[in-house]
């Protein structure tokens, strides 16, 4: 009930655990230091953008400052490029050397643009030709969240479950490895991450009763080095001698089997379609696991390990170091796959190595990234389905009255199935010490029904309709101070925010709206300084880079879609409140505001002559 009180109580516990007896009084007098990105995971900016998250710490921050609060008003289009695909463009463009790489939604074409020439002409196109039938097992549009670059190769995933290495100079295919089976409902939509010569890839398909996994492929050959499942026996999950979770609730033998009804783990979800971060100093990768299947929680009594949580693993062996289950026995499709930002920040006066996660369930979690201990969990959005996290046990306290039940419509649950925020990543500016979280303000009605498992068809068991939350605005951009554990400022948006944010050393925050506005805000105040209307709604990830001419550029893909934009790309019928798993009801007016598209926009200041 009283979120504040729960949090304070928790903070006291954390304090008692974290500090020697003498420290607290002293610590409270000191001025709180700012949060800084993990140093080993955020090297100095080279002006390139070689992975969607910018660096292993996932800051999505550019040190370029030519475009800043003083100059941004003159920002204008430098060039554009049509992707030729008018489905949801969720990818981040990459820039390495003099070339920009962009990947489209299905059919997953990869383009290389020559940035040294006027208008950035095409250098080459790679067409992987994925199976068309894969479109039928993609839960939420045929999206792709980006590619990865390493050692002269571009690594991409296709909707039909393949990972492909392409020679960056020529667009020639080097290897391809088939990882997923669409007849089981498996697709791949996430952006791979390359760590120590291994390409990390996870599957999608949590709405189809797949079994979630993360795998590491040898970047040279495409051969599987290790594969970690997120349900099933410890040997499959790669839980062994190295596994040292912080909380007792994460300990026990074969919990990936025993926390499920018999054999339910085989179709239990826990996919890895979101973001991975890497700390080179601790030599650990961090990744989330998605929702358990089916959505109907009464069909899977138990904690449903290892779904809905965060793993730290050794990148060489895949062996788990720790796990924290954010949402045990998930009630609401709350995939725990959002971005994981590696920050060092003071907690009760002591600098801690943390991983910060704006979670789908509406809380910003700060965890010790060496141990998996929850240091704080504070609401950044409107929540009525839970009351807070007990920092001693790590348990999330749920509100019984909002729990889904068979044969009953449970009304006004906040947040919704896509959560307070979904996959679209936040950015962190070390200059302001603020995390810029793009999120939503929606609530929902939910009725559970018995789900039938038919391989290759969705396995859900719930009817949902969503609607605007208190205040009527459906989106919000919040600047969050992870040290003060509070919002510095926030800006309301009419439509849900489904784009990522970019922050820069020019003290700007860039993001896009579903109507198609691309905006720049003052990172310190939230004041809007510039806006540009693109051809379609924006759900992509903006980036900044230094061009071959030495100037700063900002790039973003425009093209509405994804779960939030399904009403437009699928031309769905809003008379049915449950269309697109209920999202259509919340954005029924989107068809009047934007149409499909697929265009790259690149912006720069006017060149001096």
């Amino acid at each position, binding site marked *: 009930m009283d979120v504040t009180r729960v949090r304070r109580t928790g903070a006291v516990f954390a304090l008692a655990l974290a500090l020697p007896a003498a420290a607290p009084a002293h610590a409270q007098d000191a001025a709180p230091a700012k949060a800084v990105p993990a140093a080993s995971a955020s090297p100095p900016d080279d002006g390139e953008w070689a992975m969607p998250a910018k660096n292993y710490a996932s800051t999505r921050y550019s040190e370029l400052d030519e475009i800043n609060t003083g100059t941004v008003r003159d920002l204008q289009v430098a060039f554009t490029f049509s992707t030729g695909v008018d489905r949801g463009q969720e990818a981040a463009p990459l820039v390495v050397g003099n070339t920009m790489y962009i990947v489209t939604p299905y059919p997953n074409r990869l383009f290389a643009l020559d940035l040294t020439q006027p208008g950035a002409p095409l250098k080459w196109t790679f067409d992987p030709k994925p199976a*068309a039938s894969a*479109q039928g097992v993609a839960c939420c549009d045929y999206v792709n969240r980006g590619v990865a670059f390493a050692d002269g190769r571009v690594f991409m995933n296709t909707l039909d479950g393949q990972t492909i290495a392409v020679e960056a100079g020529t667009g020639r295919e080097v290897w391809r490895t088939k990882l997923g089976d669409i007849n089981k409902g498996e697709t791949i939509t996430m952006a791979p991450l390359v760590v120590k010569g291994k390409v990390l890839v996870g599957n999608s398909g949590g709405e189809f009763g797949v079994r979630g996994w993360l795998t590491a492929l040898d970047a040279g050959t495409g051969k599987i080095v290790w594969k970690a499942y997120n349900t099933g026996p410890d040997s499959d999950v790669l839980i062994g001698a190295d596994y040292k979770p912080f909380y007792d609730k994460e300990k026990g033998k074969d919990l990936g089997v025993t926390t499920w009804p018999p054999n339910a783990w085989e179709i239990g979800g826990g996919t890895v379609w979101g973001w991975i971060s890497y700390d080179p100093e601790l030599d650990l990768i961090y990744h989330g696991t998605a929702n358990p299947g089916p959505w109907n929680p009464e069909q899977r009594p138990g904690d449903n390990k290892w779904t809905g949580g965060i793993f730290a693993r050794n990148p060489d062996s895949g062996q788990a170091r720790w796990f924290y289950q954010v949402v045990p026995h998930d009630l609401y499709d709350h995939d725990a796959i959002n971005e994981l930002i590696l920050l060092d920040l003071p907690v009760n006066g002591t600098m801690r190595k943390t991983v910060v996660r704006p979670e789908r369930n509406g809380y910003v979690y700060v965890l010790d990234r060496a141990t998996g201990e929850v240091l704080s969990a504070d609401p950044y959005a409107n929540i009525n389905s839970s009351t807070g996290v007990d920092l001693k046990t790590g348990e999330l306290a749920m509100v019984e009255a909002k729990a889904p039940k068979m044969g009953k419509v449970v009304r006004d649950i906040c947040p919704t199935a896509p959560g307070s925020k979904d996959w679209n990543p936040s950015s962190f500016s070390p200059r302001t010490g603020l995390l810029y979280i793009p999120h939503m303000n929606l609530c929902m*009605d939910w009725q559970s029904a018995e789900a039938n498992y038919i391989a*290759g068809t*969705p396995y859900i068991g719930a*009817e949902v309709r969503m609607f605007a939350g208190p205040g009527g605005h459906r989106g919000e951009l919040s600047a969050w101070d992870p040290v003060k554990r509070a919002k510095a400022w926030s800006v309301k948006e009419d439509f849900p925010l489904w784009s990522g944010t970019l922050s820069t050393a020019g003290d700007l925050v860039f993001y896009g709206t579903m109507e198609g506005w691309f905006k720049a805000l003052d990172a310190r105040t939230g004041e809007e300084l510039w806006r540009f209307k693109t051809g379609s709604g924006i759900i992509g990830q903006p980036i900044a880079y230094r061009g071959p001419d030495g100037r700063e550029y900002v790039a973003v893909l425009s093209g509405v879609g994804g779960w939030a934009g399904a009403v437009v790309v699928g031309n*769905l019928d809003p*008379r049915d409140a449950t*269309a*697109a798993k209920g999202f259509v009801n919340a954005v029924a007016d989107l068809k009047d505001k934007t149409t499909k598209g697929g265009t790259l926009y690149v912006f720069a200041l006017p060149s001096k002559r």
Partner: protein
Amino acid sequence: MSSPCRRSASLAVLAVLALAACDREEREPRGAPVGESGPGAIAQGTLYAGEPSPPDPRRQEYEGNAYHLAQGKQLYVWFNCGTCHANGGGDIGPPLMDDSWIYGDSLENIFATIVQGRPNGMPSFRNKIPETQIWEIAAYVRSMSGQTPTAASPGRNDSLNAKPAEQRTPKAEPKQSTPGGPQVEGRQ
């Protein structure tokens, strides 16, 4: 209702008449074989050589029958049609309650789409659903856009009341939508 029938059945001469009087209760849940229904029976376009063929008699049998439509509505949920097409508004698959039809709006075309699957994501249910039940699902799909007689269309929803029941859905005039998937129409 059944007891008079049973009594008459004891008289051999009247038996046939009495059974005939019970026919109005006949539901044939398994259905009788009703002839060829494969790909050869459907047309994808509206152009044909010579005179048009007479309408398939199954249209009358399935679309005008409240029992078949009610069965179809239940089967639509049980075979996970609804997890892709929602309650007609669409999701992964296209809406079924509007006026756009990529692969044909007739009962036979919908039957064929379910059996054969379609290239941009519609799975094939060949040999997975009994034929009679596929006709029932196809007839129910027709009811979602008001193509079936109001008297026969389902009158209520079983779960979260996502939209008015089929009986109260205004009839949409079916129109062709170009096949070719998302690149052309944003539809599968």
